[in-house]
């Protein structure tokens, strides 16, 4: 099996190389035979998918067959590992995750190559660029991180097992989502670079890649937040985001990708920011690769760096080559990227996009700077420093609040120019609503002058309310206009409105989701925690909950031994739940792992961890966290994903008006 896998990887490298070389040759020398040569390049690209898929399939089958002659399977699986985790073995280690990356890239390439008739020449350029990226990953797989490398000496009876932190259901879906996001940005990058090389006129490449970008962004969003949810559910420290370098690595391309999604609208609508968009999509692709480099090279320590090796050098060269290539073609062909329009007013949708991009890029820079500063410090001062949550909380939170303000104001601004009167008219009610939220929060005991964290929480609540209210007001105002014309009720009119411009209103739903996420995050300053050694019948009170230890016990399973406590949760005199915080000891890897138990409500999460046993008394130590509003983070993410899916629905055909109707002025902010 391993030999077939190894051969498949070599064949994939040969096919990708052919796809790239033949593709470039066909594009560089247009002539009688070039079309047929280009077609062979396209087919070689398609075949690459089949061969990489075969290699990945063999690795998964080897995991299920407990083939410990393959070193990768030995290091990341064991006989008693449950089936879903054996499947997840594919992306649980260095070599497997690179193979998975390659598989996803070839799958994206397959879809692109099958749709080549949309614009044969632009697709041929994009196909060649994707083949070039594919070559890099296949070179790594064949010569630096071979997933089918064999064990030396006597074969072990059982594998070393999967890292306990990865033995959690979300790990079966979190990495694929994140990788679909990372890898997916290769496609719009390939189209952008292709358009740049061929001096492609117009904005067609943006129209072609719009859906790719939105889908990719949705995957990355999903991946980032699944990672946060995994950290919350598995790491057991009661939080979901620790500003760890690997978390930061996933956030950076998300930030630039979000900036790109906004600024392409400027190019589509007004023919502006063409050069900027080129650099933005390049930066997004580049940061996705940089993230992989950070995760894999081990140059920065992280709780998430599950696979570290010496492949950092390969990534450095790849990052350098892609930068030089992109910069070369940019400076060679930038003359055709001149803006077609001028900015007419400071109070306009265009300037709101500019400031939105500035803040997103600033947030990205802050995260990048904080991630790399320990290395810079070591280089300059000779000693490393830690750049942890206190730094990011001080620097990134004000930027996030400004972004939230723009999220609220931006949709109210019209393209080209917005009059102050219209801004005042559209902004007044949402602003009053936000002010009311602030007053209510102070009335209910939030004291922003006591602690900067409370001040941020208050601002975040007010701005989130502002975003939600502006989104609602946009739907209601647009719905009313349609309702007057069609006689439909307001709800039906709003649905009608949505179908007329799914991208715009889907985008508003995403904005609403962001506001809901922020509401979830703003509970953080009000977190409480308590720790207590709990024997039979011992009580611990946290918030409105009383926890009673009913029992504590141990068990033995094929994959692990475990000890856990049985905790009854009371609210007043009513028992509302029994929770089982647990600690496991995995036999194969010989590693312990805590498993928190979480009771989630819309108001707060009760989060219990089994910290260990007091050796002197033999009684368990239980830590309880009370985390307000956390559930809204996950609800907000679902709304964001839902909004993106809705934005992907094609617009409904324009409705024919059969009777003369007076034309109404479109509400402010009309247009995308």
């Amino acid at each position, binding site marked *: 099996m391993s030999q077939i896998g190894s051969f498949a990887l070599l064949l994939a490298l040969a096919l990708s190389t052919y796809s790239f070389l033949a593709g470039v040759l066909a594009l560089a020398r247009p002539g009688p035979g070039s079309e047929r040569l280009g077609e062979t390049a396209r087919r070689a690209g398609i075949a690459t998918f089949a061969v990489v898929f075969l290699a990945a399939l063999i690795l998964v089958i080897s995991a299920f067959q407990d083939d410990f002659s393959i070193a990768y399977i030995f290091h990341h699986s064991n006989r008693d590992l449950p089936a879903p985790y054996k499947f997840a073995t594919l992306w649980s280690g260095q070599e497997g995750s690179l193979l998975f990356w390659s598989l996803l890239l070839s799958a994206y390439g397959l879809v692109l190559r099958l749709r080549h008739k949309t614009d044969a020449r632009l697709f041929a350029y994009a196909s060649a660029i994707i083949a070039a990226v594919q070559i890099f990953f296949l070179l790594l797989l064949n010569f630096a991180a071979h997933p089918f490398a064999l064990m030396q000496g006597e074969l072990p009876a059982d594998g070393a097992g999967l890292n306990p932190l990865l033995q959690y259901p979300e790990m079966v879906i979190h990495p694929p989502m994140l990788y679909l996001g990372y890898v997916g940005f290769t496609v719009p990058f390939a189209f952008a670079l292709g358009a740049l090389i061929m001096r492609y006129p117009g904005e067609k490449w943006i129209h072609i890649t719009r859906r790719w970008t939105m889908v990719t962004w949705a995957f990355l969003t999903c991946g980032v937040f699944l990672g946060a949810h995994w950290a919350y559910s598995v790491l057991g*420290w009661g939080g979901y985001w*620790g500003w760890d370098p690997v978390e930061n690595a996933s956030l950076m391309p998300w930030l630039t990708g979000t900036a790109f999604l906004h600024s392409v609208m400027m190019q589509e609508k007004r023919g*502006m920011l063409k050069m900027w968009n080129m650099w933005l999509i390049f930066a997004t692709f580049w940061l996705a690769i940089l993230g992989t480099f950070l995760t894999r090279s081990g140059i920065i*320590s992280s709780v998430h760096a599950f696979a570290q090796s010496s492949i950092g050098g390969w990534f450095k060269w790849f990052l350098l080559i892609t930068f030089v290539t992109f910069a070369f073609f940019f400076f060679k062909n930038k003359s055709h990227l001149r803006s077609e329009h001028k*900015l007419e007013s400071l109070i306009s949708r265009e300037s709101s996009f500019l400031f939105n991009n500035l803040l997103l890029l600033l947030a990205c820079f802050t995260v990048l700077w904080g991630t790399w500063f320990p290395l810079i410090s070591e280089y300059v001062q000779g000693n490393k*420093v830690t750049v942890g*949550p*206190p730094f990011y909380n001080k*620097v990134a939170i004000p930027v996030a609040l400004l972004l939230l303000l723009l999220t609220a104001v931006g949709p109210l601004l019209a393209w080209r120019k917005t009059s102050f009167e219209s801004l005042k008219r559209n902004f007044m009610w949402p602003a009053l609503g936000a002010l009311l939220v602030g007053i209510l929060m102070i009335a209910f005991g939030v004291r922003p002058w006591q602690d900067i964290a409370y001040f941020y929480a208050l601002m975040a609540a007010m701005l989130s309310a502002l975003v939600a209210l502006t989104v609602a007001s946009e739907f209601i105002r647009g719905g009313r206009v349609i309702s007057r014309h069609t006689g439909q009720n307001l709800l039906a009119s709003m649905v009608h409105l949505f179908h007329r411009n799914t991208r715009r209103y889907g985008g508003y739903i995403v904005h609403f989701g962001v506001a809901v996420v922020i509401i979830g995050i703003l509970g953080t300053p009000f977190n409480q925690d308590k720790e207590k050694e709990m024997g039979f019948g011992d009580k611990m009170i946290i918030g409105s909950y009383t926890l009673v230890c009913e029992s504590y016990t141990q068990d033995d399973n094929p994959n692990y031994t475990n000890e856990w406590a049985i905790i009854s949760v009371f609210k007043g005199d009513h028992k509302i739940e029994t929770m089982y915080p647990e600690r496991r000891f995995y036999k194969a890897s010989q590693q312990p792992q805590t498993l928190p138990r979480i009771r989630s409500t819309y108001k707060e999460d009760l989060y219990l961890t089994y910290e260990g046993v007091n050796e002197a008394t033999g009684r368990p130590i239980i830590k309880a966290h009370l985390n307000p509003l956390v559930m809204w983070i996950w609800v907000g993410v679902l709304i964001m994903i839902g909004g993106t899916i809705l934005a992907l629905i094609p617009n409904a055909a324009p409705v024919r008006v059969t009777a003369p109707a007076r034309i109404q002025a479109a509400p402010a902010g009309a247009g995308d």
Partner: protein
Amino acid sequence: MKRTKTNPIFRRGLHVALLCLTVFTVLGASDEGARFNNLGHRLMCVCGCNQILLECNHVGCTYSERMRGELMAGLDRGENDDLTLQDFVQKYGPTVLAAPTATGFNRVAWIMPFLALVLGLLTTIFIVLAWRKRPALAAPGGVLPVSGGELEHFRTQARKDTQI
């Protein structure tokens, strides 16, 4: 002797302001638990788990419990925050602090994001001003874009032509 008559509303307002000031000053006073919590969140656990000291729940961690004890002992000795943190730096090295200090080269860590914000803002304002000054590009074929009354005339005509 004639007493100066003070406006009662002003006097009441002054009382309220004084009361608020006193209450807020008292509210701001920190107790030992809050200091422990604050300092514990400014330190890292040094076991290699990369977590904030008070958030380290690393199973079998040999450092966090001891470090929490040392922090408590430092507070019991009546040391101020800076001295307590300095004790940790001397014992565990500069990486024990969860964020760079505002001294020496470490200041750069704090300055750069704000410098980037200022530079970014200046660049954006410069771009906006440059764009506003830029003359509108002529449409292909040398036709100038219509505006104002002429544009409204075309709009009215288009409405008439497309009405059913």
